C-alpha cells in the first residue's frame, strides 16, 4: 500500500512544522548519523501546551545545540509481535517519555528529571520519532552523552516496557551493548567428546582383552589334548603292572614294511 511521501504527520494532534516540506530529509543510517542535511524546522508542542520550542536546524555550520542532542527512535512493533501488535498512540508515547525520564533519573545530578522534560517530535507511521530531554529550567537540552549513557544503562527495562528488543526498538546513534556470549564453564562439545572417547577406549580394551582370552584358550587346547594322551599312556603302563617297554612304540622296532595311512601320500 502506497503512502504519500509528504505525510509525516503523526496520528495525534502534535505535529512538527517543517520549514521546507519538500526537502525534508532524514538520515536513516542507523549508527553513523552525524549531520542533518538541508534545513529542517520542527516545532515541538508539548502535551500540556506550556512551552513551545522551536528548533531551527540550519546547515551544518549554524547548527544549534538542540539538534545534536536529539535522538531518533524507530520501532518495529508488527515485526516483533505479529498479531499481538499494539497501536502506537499517545499513551504509548507517554510510557516512552516515562521510561526516558526514569532512565535519566538514574544518572547522578539528574534525579529531578520529570516526564514533562522529555519532548517527542515528528512521529511517523513507520513508527519513528525524535526525542530530546530538556533540563528543569527548560532553557537547553541535556547533552547527548548523558542521555546516551542513561539509555544504554537501562536499555533492557525500556525494551521490556514495550515487549520489544534491541533490534525492534532502535535508538539510532546509540549502539546497543551486545550480550556477552553465554559460555558455559565447560563447553558442551568437550563433554560429548569425553563421553564418546571413553566409550571407544572401553570398547577397544574389551576387544583386546577378549582377543587375548581367545588366543590363550586356543593355545591351551592342543596342549591339554597332549597332556591327556600322555596321561593315558602312563596309566596303561603303570596299571597293568607289566612293564610295557617292549610294547612301547618308541622302544620297539618299527616295522618298515608297514606304512601308516598318513605316510602313504607325499606331503604337499
Amino acid at each position, binding site marked *: 500500500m502506497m503512502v504519500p511521501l509528504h505525510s509525516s504527520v503523526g496520528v495525534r494532534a502534535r505535529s512538527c512544522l517543517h520549514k521546507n516540506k519538500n526537502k525534508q530529509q*532524514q538520515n536513516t543510517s542507523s549508527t553513523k548519523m552525524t549531520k542533518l542535511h538541508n534545513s529542517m524546522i520542527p516545532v515541538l508542542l508539548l502535551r500540556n501546551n506550556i512551552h513551545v520550542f522551536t528548533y531551527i536546524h540550519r546547515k551544518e555550520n549554524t547548527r544549534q545545540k538542540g539538534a545534536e542532542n536529539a535522538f531518533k527512535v*524507530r520501532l518495529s*512493533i*508488527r515485526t516483533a509481535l505479529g498479531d499481538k501488535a499494539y497501536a502506537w498512540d499517545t499513551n504509548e508515547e507517554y510510557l516512552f517519555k516515562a521510561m526516558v525520564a526514569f532512565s535519566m533519573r538514574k544518572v547522578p545530578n539528574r534525579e529531578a528529571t520529570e516526564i514533562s522534560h522529555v519532548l517527542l517530535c515528528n512521529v511517523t507511521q*513507520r513508527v519513528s520519532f525524535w526525542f530530546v530531554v530538556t533540563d528543569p529550567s527548560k532553557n537547553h537540552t541535556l547533552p547527548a552523552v548523558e542521555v546516551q549513557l542513561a539509555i544504554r544503562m537501562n536499555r533492557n527495562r525500556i525494551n521490556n516496557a514495550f515487549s520489544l528488543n534491541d533490534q525492534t526498538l532502535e535508538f539510532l546513534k546509540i549502539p546497543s551493548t551486545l550480550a556477552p556470549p553465554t559460555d558455559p564453564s565447560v563447553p558442551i562439545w568437550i563433554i560429548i567428546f569425553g563421553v564418546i572417547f571413553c566409550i571407544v577406549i572401553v570398547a*577397544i580394551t574389551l576387544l583386546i582383552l577378549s582377543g587375548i582370552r581367545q588366543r590363550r584358550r586356543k593355545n591351551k587346547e592342543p596342549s591339554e589334548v597332549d597332556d591327556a594322551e600322555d596321561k593315558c599312556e602312563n596309566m596303561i603302563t603303570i596299571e597293568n603292572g607289566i612293564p610295557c617297554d617292549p610294547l612301547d612304540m618308541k622302544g620297539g622296532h618299527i616295522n618298515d614294511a608297514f606304512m601308516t595311512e598318513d605316510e602313504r601320500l607325499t606331503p604337499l
Partner: protein
Amino acid sequence: MAHAPEPDLASGDPGDERPRWDNKAQYLLSCIGFAVGLGNIWRFPYLCQTYGGGAFLIPYVIALIFEGIPLFHVELAIGQRLRKGSIGVWTAVSPYLSGLGLGCVMLSSLVSLYYNTILAWVLWYFLNSFQHPLPWSSCPPDLNRTGFVEECQGSSAVSYFWYRQTLNITADINDSGSIQWRLLICLAACWAVVYMCVIRGVETTGKAIYFTASFPYLVLTIFLIRGLTLPGATKGLSYLFTPNMQILQNPRVWLDAATQIFFSLSLAFGGHIAFASYNSPRNDCRKDAVVIALVNSMTSLYASIAVFSILGFKATNSYERCLDRNILSLINEFDFPEQSISRDDYPAVLVHLTATQPRRVARLPLKACHLEDFLDKTASGPGLAFIVFTEAVLHMPGAPGWAVLFFGMLFTLGLSSMFGNMEAIITPLLDNGVLPRWVPKEALTGLVCLACFLCATCFTLQSGNYWLEIFDNFAAPLNLLIFAFLEVVGVVYVYGMKRFCDDIAWMTGRRPGPYWRLTWRVVSPLLLLTIFVAYVTLLARKPLSYRAWNPQYELFPSRQEKLYPGWVRAACVLLSLLPVLWVPMAALAQLLTRWKRTWRDRDVRPDTNTR
C-alpha cells in the same frame, strides 16, 4: 611366471584359516560402504549442477557402463580368485607387477591420512551441533562488545566459524602456524574409532558395517522428506535437473564424468581386492560388481536430490532475505508503515520511488536480488558441507537436530570408506607376514593406526587445509589412473584373458560374455589412457596455485589466489610420483634378482644350458 594354484585347491594358505565374512550381506555392505563416500554427497551434485543438470547423466552412465563396472568386476574377481591382498595378488599375477600392489598400499596410506582428517573436521562439527543456538549462527562480539569481530563481519558467521574457529587458518601455506589442539583430539578420537572397528579385520569390520553403511541411507531419506517439504525445494531441484544439452559438446564434461565414476567406485585402491579375498571362492562376483556399482550411482542420485532440495530452500531463503533487507531500507528511509511493501510489490515500488526521489533512493544500499545468483552459489567438497549446508541448516526449524543428523551421516559415510582404505593396507601386510607370527593382529592394526595418526598430525597445523588440498589433488588422481590401467592390462594380457575367463567360469558358473571381454581388452584401457592424458594436459596447462583465506586481502571475503612456492611444488611432484615409482622399482628389483640367479646358476653349472 609364478605358479598359481589350481582352482580346486584355491582354499587359501595351508595351515592358516583365512578369515571370512559372516554372511554375504556383510561383504556387500562393506563394498558399498567403501564405494559410497563423501564424494557421493558433495561432488556428484556439484558436477550435476555445473554440467547441465540432467544432461550430465548421459556421460555418467556411459562411463559407468564402459569403465566403472568392467574395472570393478576385474578387481572383485581377481581378489576372490587369488584370495590375497593387493601385494599378494599382483605378485601372483606376475612378479614384475608386485610393485603395483606396493603402490596401492602406499596410496591407500596417503589417502587414509587426509581422509581421516576430514572426518576429524566432521566430528568437530558434530560435537558442536549439540547446542542451541548453533555456534555458527552468529558472529562473536568483539573486545569492547560494541560490534562483531571484524573478520566475521566482513565474511559471514558460517565462514568465520569454519576458517577461524575450526581451522584457524593462516593466510599463506608457508606460514605453518601451531597445532590446533581441538582438531588434534578430534583426530585422535577418529583414529581410535577406526581402530576399534578394524581391530580384528573383517571380524569387527563386518559387525560395524551394519550400522555405518545403513545409517547414511536412513538420514538421507529423512533429509529428502524434510527437504521436499521446505519452501523453494522445487526451484532447487528444477535448477539441478534441467538438462542443458549444449554442454555435452564440451570435452571437459566427459572427462569429469569418467573421473567421477572412477573415483566414486574407489577403484585401484586395493580395498575391493582385500574385501573380495575374504569371500568364499565360489561366489558370483559378476552380479556383485554390477549390483554394487549400480547402488553407488543410485546413491549419488538420491543424495543429490536431497542435497539440492535443501540448497533450493537455502537459495530461496537468501533471496527472500535479500528482498526483505531492501524493503526495510526503503521503509526506514521513507518512513512507510511497517510491512507496507510486500515482496511482490517491491519492484513496482522501487521503480516509482526511483522516478520520484532518485537521489534518496541512490543513497540507499540496495542490492540486486536474483534467485539464480543464489542458486549458483553452490560449492563442492568441504565447502559444501561446512559452509553452504551448515548455513542452510540454520534456517530450518530445529536446526541443532538437523545438524547432528547431517554430520552424523557424513561421519558414518567417511568411516565406512576408511574401513576399505585400512583393509587395503592391513590385508597385504598380514598376508606378507611383515610382522612375526606371534604378534597378534590387534597389534599390527594398532601400529598402523598409530603411525597414520602421527603422520596426520601435520594436517592439524594452521596451514593443514592447504596441505590437505594438495594431497587430495595430487596424491590420488594420477596414481589411481595409472594403477587402474596397469590392473586391467595386467589381468587381461599378463595373467591371460583365457585363464581369467576360466577362473570366472569356475567361480560364478558362467563364462564372461562378449561385453566383458571387449571392455576389458579394448575399451577400458583406451578410456583410461585417454583420461590420463587429458588429465595431465589440463594439469600442466594451469599454474599450480591455491586459494588462501586472507583477511587482509582487498577483495576479502573472496579467497586470494596464490602460487605455490617452489618447495611445495616439489612436494606435489613427489606425492604424484611416489606411489607410482614402486612399479618400475619392483620390476627392476625382480629383474636384478632374476639376472643374479641366472648368473649364479651359470657359474654353478657352466656346461648345461639353463634358462
